[in-house]
């Protein structure tokens, strides 16, 4: 056999060296944890061309985002130029992580709970100094207590909040009018909802053509946790780095049983397979459901509904109703290539842009005045104000641990799925979730 210029050993060595180099490149640089300089200083840190990343939320909301970027560019003409890119949610976090891995993080990106892992790795900029220079730190204008969950080190904000979301009971006014039943309000209990759901349900033979109730977002862990909150307990001791889960509290199993019974024992709400069929018919927006507890982010899509609809505060469970809330906003990598521009954009959306956000009706502004403004209420359902009235005493509906995705995906979701399919008792579900989540904590 003739000798070749490259031996197999050389080739393998080269490939290994190449792989080692590739792996060596997988190391985002770390830097100090001191606050990022505020954008009000005369010095501009980084580029003036800013690229903003968000996940796509449908045409209407994406268009509003684009318009806001245009408005920002107009206001900061000659100083900063921003553009926005949208990614599908299922690719969004992968792309962000890949950018970090390549040492080229995005200039800024829209927050979701996955970004907490980025904070844990020391990759996010401390934005407190920037916030302190703006009206965003004014307690008379903003619900500052609600921002606390984003103070991951208990002192500094690592995200700039700009909007807020919660839950409410959505209802189809046409169904209520047809049945001659008064609309739900803040006094309604879940017992009243169940009773009314029965009256609103319509059948054709054995087939239900209109469901009085759907479990809606009570089918998600944070939705069902609102019942546990009302009963005086919670799934874990604190949302930020919990030290223990407390799903073994009997009140949690009781909340699980309540939701399971809605679908199985009482059957006033469709079971999972029936829900799938309903969803194909459009769900609440399709007019086949009379009442559904859900997130306020549904408001934009419900605006397209043919039937009239409205919203009411979450019904009372064991005499109490506790609202969840979630913050929407921006995080900025420490190594952002356009740090000042990113801070400026985020603060601009959280302050000057709030009135337009209210008028757009896509997000609920975090600024008190904008959220309660006529522009916000105009075109919104009548019950919006009442539904959002308790927002300042709401509880954060997130779980902040670096492996929260794994806990939710491997433990919470499959066990709740078994519960909702009536394959598992509420007690077993609570016990398995407690055991599985504790093992991963």
């Amino acid at each position: 056999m003739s000798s070749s210029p490259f031996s197999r050993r050389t080739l393998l060595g080269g490939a290994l060296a190449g792989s080692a180099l590739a792996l060596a490149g997988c190391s985002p640089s770390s830097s100090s944890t001191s606050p990022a300089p505020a954008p009000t200083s005369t010095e501009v840190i980084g580029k003036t061309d800013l690229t903003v990343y968000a996940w796509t939320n449908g045409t209407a909301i994406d268009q509003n985002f684009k318009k806001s970027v245009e408005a920002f560019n107009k206001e900061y003409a000659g100083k900063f130029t921003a553009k926005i890119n949208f990614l599908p949610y299922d690719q969004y976090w992968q792309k962000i992580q890949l950018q970090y891995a390549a040492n080229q993080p995005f200039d800024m990106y829209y927050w979701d709970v996955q970004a907490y892992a980025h904070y844990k790795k020391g990759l996010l900029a401390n934005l407190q100094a920037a916030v302190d220079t703006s009206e965003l730190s004014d307690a008379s204008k903003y619900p500052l207590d609600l921002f606390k969950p984003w103070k991951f080190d208990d002192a500094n904000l690592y995200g700039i909040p700009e909007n807020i979301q919660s839950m409410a009971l959505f209802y189809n006014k046409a169904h209520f009018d047809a049945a001659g039943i008064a609309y739900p309000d803040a006094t309604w209990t879940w017992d009243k909802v169940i009773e009314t759901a029965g009256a609103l349900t319509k059948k054709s033979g054995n087939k239900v053509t209109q469901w009085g109730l759907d479990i809606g977002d009570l089918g998600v862990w944070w939705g069902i946790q609102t019942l546990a909150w009302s009963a005086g307990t919670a799934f874990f001791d604190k949302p930020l780095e919990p030290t223990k889960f407390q799903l073994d509290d009997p009140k949690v199993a009781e909340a699980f049983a309540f939701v399971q019974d809605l679908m199985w024992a009482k059957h006033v709400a469709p079971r999972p397979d029936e829900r799938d069929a309903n969803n194909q018919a459009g769900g609440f927006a399709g007019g086949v459901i009379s009442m559904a507890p859900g997130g306020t982010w549904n408001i934009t899509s419900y605006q397209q509904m043919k039937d009239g609809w409205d919203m009411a505060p979450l019904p009372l469970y064991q005499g109490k109703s506790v609202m969840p809330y979630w913050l929407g906003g921006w995080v900025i990598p420490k190594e952002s290539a356009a740090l000042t521009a990113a801070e400026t954009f985020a603060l601009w959306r959280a302050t000057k842009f709030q009135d337009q956000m209210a008028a757009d009706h896509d997000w609920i502004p975090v600024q008190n005045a904008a959220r309660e403004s006529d522009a916000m209420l105009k075109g919104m359902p009548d019950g919006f104000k009442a539904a959002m009235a308790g927002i300042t005493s709401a509880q954060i509906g997130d779980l902040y641990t670096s492996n929260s995705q794994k806990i939710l995906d491997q433990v919470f979701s499959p066990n709740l799925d078994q519960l909702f399919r009536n394959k598992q008792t509420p007690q077993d579900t609570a016990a398995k979730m407690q055991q599985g989540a504790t093992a991963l904590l």
Partner: protein
Amino acid sequence: MATTHVAARSAATGRKRRRSGLARREALWCYVFMAPAILGVLLFSVGPMIASFVLSFTSYDMLSSPEWVGPKNYTKLAADPLFLKSLQVTLTYAVVVVPGTMLMGLVVAILLNAKLPAIGFFRSAYYLPTVIGGVAVARVWAMLYNPEVGLFNQILGLFGIDGPGWLTDERWALWSLAFMGVWGFGGTMLIYLAGLQGIPKELYEAAEVDGAGGFRKHIFVTIPMLSNVTFFNLVMGIIGALQVFAEPFVLTQGTGRPNNSTLLLPLYLYKVAFEYLEMGYAAAIAWVVFAITLVLTALVFRSLPLWVHTEVSDN
């Protein structure tokens, strides 16, 4: 004479030199033309494979540098209930889908090998599912499997049967996926069809002379003569069954539900890598899947002399 000999030797040496120079140039051009392909394989296949093998011995979340953990990821696999569950799910799926696809492919290929009117249409129709992308197919099957409005339960309803939740009932979900997998037998069928057309007609005539009926002709002529095609389909089927991803991902929204009963290994690998960001652990899973594929393929190859009819063995 001596002068002639020297001249002849000199000419031969010159020819050799010329040949040698020509051979070198040819070799050089050969390498030049091969270089893009070899570089491509090294950069995009061998390099990433080696990188993933090295990564499988690290803890790596893409946000910080990989940290060497030795064989921990591999030992962790043995105690990971979800990995063991997904391994069981995958092997069950493969045991059903691989023989199912081959049997369906063979039977339909035999039927389509007959000289019938519009046979071209039927061949295209049966091959069509193979051409359509996995995601589109999965969306269609999701509608068919819908327990309330899906076609299957509508048909069962005509006979008074309350059909199951095909994708939501733990007892049915994996079988539903497997059925859908078998439905994609078009590729296997096409290869069998090509093999069938290579079987000499004389063999069937001889079998007829010996008194063989239609069924016996297939048992004693078709199947042995197609054994090399079966061997190929078996190897490719095993590899394919261990890599199924798009269909379970779409049909279960990437969850592997209900109760992880459809959590095929590629789906679990994806979740570990891109949802939990445990790249090192995901790389270890990938290498274990590779090892399983390698072992199963090697076993099939070892069994080759026992059941595969080849020209060489006949000689």
